[in-house]
């Protein structure tokens, strides 16, 4: 076994024990000896993920992808680091790439990668939602302020006429607040996940629905997990092979569109 392999195995042992800094150092030594080994980069990226060293994870993954563009782990770790740095679109893009590679390789990490896709969408939506709310609140403040200013200028006289005007302006202010309040309530009320978007095995929101002969769709990772245990259709118990599953593209698009507008649904 070469020196770099020995260092790598030593690094793996420390990683298993949770000693990530030590593992990181050993992988680095191995890389000095063998700088074109993609696995060493993903090993080190994994250790650095645990150490929350996001920038370093990104550079390791990029080095790995330079050597091996279709490296599943590199895309997956890269997505996690980008998400931690709030680069939502990049994180989602690499989560999708990892998902695609994972399906092609029939890799067991499909469940975790599916969860990563959802997590990217959810966090992106949360971030945008926060911004939307803040902007709406700012707009409300501004409108109210302008109205109060108008009111002050309008109500210059005293007496009965002024009282009448004051009442009118108060009413306007009340209505503006009401309109904003109603919009907020509506936002809260529509939070219901449609059944068609929910996988009947995990009860999770679907990312990559596949359809069986019965016409029923399931999340790919979930139905594959079931088929590993029992090669039967979950509804009819008729024989079912993984190779008989077909992607349900329209449903996939519908799920994706729904999530675009309702990111909270990712972990309802």
């Amino acid at each position: 076994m070469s020196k770099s392999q020995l260092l790598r195995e030593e690094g793996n042992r420390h990683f298993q024990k949770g000693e990530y800094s030590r593992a990181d150092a050993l992988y680095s030594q191995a890389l000095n000896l063998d700088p074109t080994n993609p696995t060493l980069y993903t090993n080190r990226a994994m250790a650095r993920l645990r150490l929350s060293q996001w920038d370093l994870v990104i550079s390791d993954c990029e080095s790995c992808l330079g050597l091996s563009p279709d490296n599943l782990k590199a895309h997956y770790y890269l997505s996690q680091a980008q998400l931690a740095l709030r680069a939502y679109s990049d994180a989602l893009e690499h989560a999708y790439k990892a998902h695609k590679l994972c399906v092609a390789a029939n890799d067991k990490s499909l469940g975790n990668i599916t969860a990563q896709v959802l997590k990217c969408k959810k966090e992106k939506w949360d971030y945008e939602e926060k911004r939307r709310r803040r902007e709406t609140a700012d707009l409300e403040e501004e409108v109210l302020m302008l109205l109060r200013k108008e009111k002050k200028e309008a109500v210059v006289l005293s007496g009965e006429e002024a009282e009448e005007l004051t009442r009118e302006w108060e009413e306007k202010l009340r209505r503006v607040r009401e309109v904003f309040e109603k919009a907020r309530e509506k936002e809260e009320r529509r939070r219901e996940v449609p059944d068609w978007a929910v996988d009947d095995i995990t009860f999770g929101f679907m990312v990559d629905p596949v359809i069986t002969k019965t016409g029923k769709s399931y999340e790919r990772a979930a139905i594959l997990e079931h088929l590993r245990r029992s090669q039967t259709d979950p509804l009819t118990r008729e024989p079912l092979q993984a190779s008989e599953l077909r992607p349900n593209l329209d449903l996939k698009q519908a799920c994706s569109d729904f999530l675009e507008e309702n990111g909270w649904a990712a972990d309802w």
Partner: protein
Amino acid sequence: MAGFATKRLGKELSKINSNSLPPGIELVSADNFEEWFLDIRVLDNNPLYLNEIYRLKFRFSAQYPIEPPEVTFVKLADRPIPIHPHIYSNGIICLDLLGQQGWSPVQNVESVCMSLQSMLTGNSRNERPAGDEEFVRANRLRPKDIDFYYDDNNV
């Protein structure tokens, strides 16, 4: 898939809490994601089960719902074990739906309770499975490891 069972059970629980269960089925406790208790009763006037409430224990593995839950009746002072040709007097249930072969991951706690409810409703035989005494004395296996022979689908 890590966290499969916990997530799914969390969602089942929130569905139960918001939509409530069908008549005759009640959640007693769901304090964790390993063991839940539910009460069921039969809705018609079947004299075998009239005015009785039965306690079910669900045990979930980390692979639920890929793996079936372990479901048994529990005996308490006011919760007998229902008499049925497929229910042993120690509470173990012989139902293909709960076996390795008959289970499907689209089943859930509610649907299992409904199946058991209808299994009781449809029964008119006031008897235990053949060899009940012997089975109860000798069995040391967990229900999922028992190889039941589902010979009689009419009961």
